[in-house]
């Protein structure tokens, strides 16, 4: 996928991997829409991209608002045109420190499902039909190995990411032949605020730089050779690059 002049929508773009991807895709000439709950850092990321000559706009987006996805898709399309690349990056761990499944409050699990699985589905519903009509588009879902492995205390988050992955794989099958490509990316462990909240005693030197991961994801999207519906681990990508 050629990224120049394309509309790229990244949820959760105010920090960590989302902000790194915003900067990376902007440097490749894309028009960047970053969406997250209203915050100073969200505006700052957009302003810093504009400051170096890129095109970026911050959009206030609440993932649990049932109308949020269609509103966001509309606002982005008015500003930059229909979305060509959608990256589901916004995600919640739930309350930290993480607690075992037996102690997980069901309402926290519900919220994890809403933010991590249902909101991406809604946003996909708002943009994928237009991509199919235009004969192309890429949707990337940022996931986690917790979607597959049973890590103690990561149950609610992992189950919500498993739901996200199966939604995306089903969408990939349903959209086969329309030109829309869906990719699931496991970025591995990164040196981000979210990781620090989940694993406070992690050794930062062992964690990947979100900027490197963003670069790997940009190469993956630009190459366009990964099959629709594939799940990609970013550590593998870095070896290839």
């Amino acid at each position, binding site marked *: 996928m050629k990224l120049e002049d394309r509309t790229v929508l990244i949820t959760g773009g105010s920090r960590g991997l989302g902000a790194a991807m915003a900067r990376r895709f902007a440097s490749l000439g894309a028009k960047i829409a970053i969406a997250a709950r209203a915050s100073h850092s969200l505006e700052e990321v957009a302003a810093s991209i504009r400051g170096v000559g890129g095109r970026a706009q911050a959009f206030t987006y609440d993932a649990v608002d*049932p*109308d949020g996805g269609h509103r966001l898709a*509309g606002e982005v399309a008015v500003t930059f045109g229909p979305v060509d690349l959608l990256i589901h990056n916004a995600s919640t761990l739930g309350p930290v420190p993480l607690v075992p499944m037996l102690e997980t409050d069901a309402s926290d699990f519900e919220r994890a499902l809403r933010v991590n699985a249902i909101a991406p589905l809604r946003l996909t519903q708002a*943009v994928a*039909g237009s991509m*199919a009509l235009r004969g192309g588009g890429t949707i990337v879902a940022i996931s986690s190995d917790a979607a597959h492995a049973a890590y103690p205390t990561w149950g609610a988050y992992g189950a919500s990411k498993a739901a996200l992955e199966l939604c995306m794989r089903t969408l990939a099958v349903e959209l086969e*032949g329309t030109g829309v490509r869906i990719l699931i990316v496991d970025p591995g462990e990164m040196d981000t605020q979210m990781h620090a909240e989940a694993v406070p005693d992690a050794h930062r030197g062992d964690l990947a730089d979100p900027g490197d991961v963003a670069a790997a994801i940009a190469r993956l999207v630009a190459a366009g050779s990964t099959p629709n519906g594939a799940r990609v681990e970013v550590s593998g990508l870095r070896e290839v690059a």
Partner: protein
Amino acid sequence: MLPAHGPRDRAVRLLAIDPLDGSLSLGWPADLPALLAPGDLVVMNDAATVPASLMGRTTSGDPIELRLTSGSSITADRTSSFLVVLFGAGDWRTPTEHRPPPPRLAPGDRLWFEASLSAVVEAVDVRSPRLCEVRFEAVGADLWRRIYRAGRPIQYAHLRSPLRLQDAQNPAAGRPVAVEAPSAGRFLHAAALRGLSRAGIRVASLTHAAGLSSTGDPVIDALLPLPEVYDLPEATVAAIDGARQRGGRIVAIGTTVVRALEGNLLEHGALRPGPGVTDLRIGPGYAPRIADALVSGLHARAESHFDVMSAFAPPSLCDEALDVAEREGLQNHEFGDLCIVVPRAPSRARPSLLPASPRLRPIRHGNGAARQIPTGASGVAIPSL
């Protein structure tokens, strides 16, 4: 015929009307590929619907509802002035024809909405106090962010519950320029597009800013549809030309597609890609030169959509089709059932309509008779203020 009460009430039906042999058949939207043939081209409107209804107040506190008559600009300029229709107290549950007019307004008066959005009245039309030009006190992306927060889609009194923004979108919609959904494209979700493609039927799109369908004010309704902007992509012009040369039929999904294509052709003498404005009204006796078939919602005889349908089939057949639809329990309005007017016999190859074409020859119909070529637009003026 009864109106459909909501977007998810029941499965939509498709009534097929053959204008050549007068046959009518009833099926489902999924039957569309079977009604068409390889080489045919489906042209759809990719306009998304903006939240064009804004509830607000005047400076003295009187409640009003403002409805935009047009969405965001196709050419991405920074317009903040809009032609709008205003209502007084009340909400969508009251049919628009029973809604009171807004309080008396004059140029300079301000209107206040949610999301810190405000507007200044610039002019009030002499024909109806409901028709005004306003200037929002925000511009560009900032204006639309506020409108998406303060507004919601235009509502219909026959619905059971209020429409959400997603209810007013067609599945393949991508460009937010319409104030009401071009609802004939409601059934063309990604799987339907894939079904057409597998049947050898190509799909192309254009963007047409569908405007208000009715306001309940007879003075304003007589002006509808107002001139509407559209954008005709180069790829769509090429696809139309290719299909025609192969003998394929051009299937317009919705009356907005017919207006854009026919309006463009009338203005330029040949299809010319790019943005445009059309004030074309299509009715019985108008012979469409681009579109061979039309997919449309079912509409009452007095509505302009019915007039467009009557340009594709004899009015007596359209009448009969509406009677059949009623007998079969079909429903009308935005979320109702659909019809397709399509001649079964494939057309034969026809001359190019590209501007580069050396000359424009008369189009021949299936029975060999020359079709009447219209000579001018009907000339509905933009309401003067």
